[in-house]
């Protein structure tokens, strides 16, 4: 029987010496649950595990139900112990050089089950090291000592932060086998960088992002797991964003000219004025966020840029070197723009394959009306791989979930590497997990080079990393 631990973390914020903060964490660890804590680097995974072992200063909220005897294995805990050992040296007043605490003593300090300790020492191959000073060990050896010490202490809650890191395959397998024993009686929380390497006793996953628990997923919930896998793939995947079509490139733009220059624009109808006297310049490489309440004219302003608003012909608008209303066609403008919105998704009710949807981005069309060439098809396949959807290329677009559709439309918009990518409320109507997926993709795009991102959102606070400029309407 697993000890009936029930930990409740409620709107918890924790400060770590001013160096790092976790904030607003709500999380429930029930009996019979073993958790995996996952998330991108620097998100706060290790900090979260440390909090359960009592590290950090609680600035808000509460945490209850943590048992008295908690064992934590982590690099930080390891470093602390080594630090303490080194300090002992410094503090030594005797003129004798200290050998430091031997490994045997370090292990013994916490041991509850001596027989188990002996067995583990043997299994981890620590016997020859027992008399060595702890601080003299290599990192890998120290790590093994920490593991043995934690396991032999028979804790009521076991916290393992990257426990397999640096272990050879043999030791890894041995530890894993042992953990299968341990989890029968001890609730365990494991921090791992790679979700796909999680041991099969893990029942739940806490996805940590930007200092908080962003998502909790039960492993038996297959659809939620699929989304999580996709998110990980996007966040941590090493696949580079595909190149544009090498032959059929977009015409080059003048390097110093702004992408968009709107001067003193107004949009008026017979009986209503949407906005008046609006000027805006978007230079290449300047990512913008456009905010404003509903009805403030955000979409209207965007459609002046894309050419979808008929009044673009009566305003002073320069886009991609074209002064609008001088005999340019709308397709000459659209070729420079990638565009995604809820409206587009609504209009894109096309029963075609996922691959074709991406290819249609080369033609700025809804549906595909031109026979694509092999390069275009190959590029579309690469994009599907970025999204983790390569095996679904021939599925029908109409059958996709909301969130997957949105991802696909973003890939469609990006396929030609447009100088300007317009994302009009790209997260609208998406649940949390899908929002995260979309934002992860946007972050990858805005970090990756030649596309200037224009991100529209009616919440000023909903920011995307890397987008600094802001225009607020209304």
């Amino acid at each position, binding site marked *: 029987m697993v000890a009936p631990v029930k930990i409740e973390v409620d709107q918890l914020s924790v400060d770590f010496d001013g160096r790092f903060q976790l904030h607003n964490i709500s999380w429930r660890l029930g009996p019979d649950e073993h958790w995996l804590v996952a998330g991108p680097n620097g998100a706060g995974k290790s900090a979260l595990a440390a909090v359960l072992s009592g590290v950090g200063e609680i600035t808000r909220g509460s945490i209850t139900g943590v048992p008295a005897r908690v064992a934590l294995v982590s690099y930080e805990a390891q470093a602390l112990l080594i630090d303490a050992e080194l300090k002992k040296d410094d503090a030594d007043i005797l003129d004798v050089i200290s050998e430091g605490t031997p490994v045997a003593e370090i292990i013994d300090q916490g041991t509850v089950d001596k027989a188990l300790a002996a067995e583990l020492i043997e299994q981890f191959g620590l016997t020859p090291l027992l008399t060595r000073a702890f601080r003299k060990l290599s990192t890998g050896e120290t790590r093994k000592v920490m593991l043995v010490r934690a396991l032999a202490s028979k804790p009521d809650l076991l916290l393992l932060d990257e426990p397999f890191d640096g272990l050879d395959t043999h030791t890894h397998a041995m530890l894993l086998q042992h953990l299968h024993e341990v989890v029968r009686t001890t609730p365990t929380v494991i921090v791992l960088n790679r979700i796909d390497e999680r041991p099969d006793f893990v029942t739940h996953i806490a996805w940590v992002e930007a200092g908080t628990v962003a998502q909790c997923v039960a492993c038996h919930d297959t659809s939620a797991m699929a989304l999580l896998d996709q998110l990980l793939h996007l966040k941590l995947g090493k696949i580079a964003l595909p190149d544009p079509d090498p032959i059929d490139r977009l015409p080059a733009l003048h390097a110093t000219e702004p992408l968009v220059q709107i001067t003193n624009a107004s949009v008026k109808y017979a009986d209503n004025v949407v906005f008046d006297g609006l000027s805006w310049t978007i230079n290449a490489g300047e990512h913008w966020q456009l905010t404003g309440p509903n009805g403030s004219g955000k979409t209207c302003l965007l459609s002046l840029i894309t050419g979808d608003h*008929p*009044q673009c*012909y009566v305003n002073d608008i320069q886009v991609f070197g074209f002064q609008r209303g001088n005999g340019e*066609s709308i*397709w000459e403008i659209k070729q420079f723009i990638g565009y995604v919105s809820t409206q587009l998704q609504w209009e894109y009710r096309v029963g075609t394959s996922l691959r074709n949807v991406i290819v249609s981005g080369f033609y700025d069309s*809804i549906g595909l*009306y031109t026979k694509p060439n092999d390069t275009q098809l190959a590029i579309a396949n690469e994009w599907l791989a970025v999204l983790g959807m390569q095996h679904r290329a021939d599925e029908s677009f109409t059958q996709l979930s909301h969130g997957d559709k949105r991802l696909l439309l973003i890939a469609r918009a990006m396929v030609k590497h447009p100088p300007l990518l317009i994302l009009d409320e790209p997260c609208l109507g998406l649940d949390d997990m899908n929002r995260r997926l979309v934002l992860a993709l946007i972050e990858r795009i805005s970090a990756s080079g030649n596309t200037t991102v224009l991100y529209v959102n009616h919440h000023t606070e909903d920011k995307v990393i890397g987008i600094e400029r802001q225009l607020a309407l209304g």
Partner: protein
Amino acid sequence: MGTNYFNSLSLREQLEQLGECRFMHLDEFTDGVDALKGKKMVVIGCGAQGLNQGLNLRDSGLDVSYALREAAILEKRQSWKNATDNGFTVGTYEELIPTADIVLNLTPDKQHTAVVTAVMPMMKKGSCLSYSHGFNIVEEGMQVRDDITVIMVAPKCPGSEVRAEYVRGFGVPTLIAVHESNDPNGIGLTLAKAYAVGTGGHKAGVLMSSFVAEVKSDLMGEQTILCGMLQTGSLLCFDKMIEEGIDAGYAAKLIQYGWETVTEALKYGGVTNMMDRLSNPAKIRAFELAESMKDILRPLYHKHQDDIMTGHFSATMMADWANDDKELLGWRAETAETAFEKTAPGDVEISEQEYFDHGILMVAMVKAGVELAFETMTDAGIIADSAYYESLHETPLIANTIARKKLHEMNATISDTAEYGCYLYNHACVPLLADFMKPLKSDVIGKGLQLDDLGVDNARLIEVNAAIRYHPVEAIGSELRGYMADMKRIV
């Protein structure tokens, strides 16, 4: 008013022009809109076609402005709003027509004689006059100044579709023609092609035809299968369901959305696919109902085509124009008072398949109407391609309008000419089908066959399938849909 142009032709010329029709290939449009670049295009009228064609042409890089009649400007009518809200230059005939290189006459057909007569003296020497329907030239025999080139660019879709498809990066099938007695410089075809490109039509397929063939087939299609049959079908099916004790809300919904749903299947795979959506016993039943209806209605279809060919139809309608549209307005009011129009669709869930299963009679009506219209047109010398577009192809587009707001919406969207013809057909068709309708029960409309055993006789099924599949509308249909699929038209 001039004399009927078609009737002034010799039989040889009539047959030649009726038979003029060729599907153009995409590579015939490589010059794009070049022939119209920098030219001043002035549209008269800013309604369904005027506004939407103008938006497309402007987005294709062309110079478009609107000449409206003075009253429309002064009273800021809808047409004025359409043009100004969309950022177009609007002016009077006097201001704009003399500057025009091409005048696009997109006013209602009924107004064409008055409008063309008014603007012709103001038009530049050597300019071009274009239409989207040939009624004025063919039926009214409008005589246009010799130096003016007269062309037609007729999208085979309502104006809203013309725009929607362009925005998606596609277009709608379009018919182009040059009026042979008005092509003084031989540039008519070049201009018509550039215009078709400007509206996006070239992507969906262009038929090069004649004014005569366009008018005679367009009138036939819209009066019979497209609008007439759907109107008659709606009224008869609704009344039958009420008589059979089916909930009125359900009946109204089954019809309002049923046409759209069953004809959607036509788009993908013609009559064959629509029939294949039924179970085997239901298919055989629908086939038999359609055969009976075809026998009953064949004389009516012939009469419509004959009246269109002789000019009797247009003369009758023009007489009504002269009589302040008495008939048209009367029929319109009558339609508004029908039980179907006045019953709101019920708040019931009807699945896509149920529209077929419970709408066997509707499917049969579509099949009968499409085939009869196609047969009658081709018998009259109209080329199959053209007959296909004017019958099967447009049926789902019109059905969509009924889904929006019933017959009212359909009759408001289509031209006055189509509306007049539709009522005319309906008046003759309802009594013709009375005896046929009498014994029918809710198994063919409203409830479905509800069979436990879906077994059918093999030989009979093969016979029925063959009859459906080998109908000539299916052959040309799969060929033309194939062209579209070539262009990866994905509906």
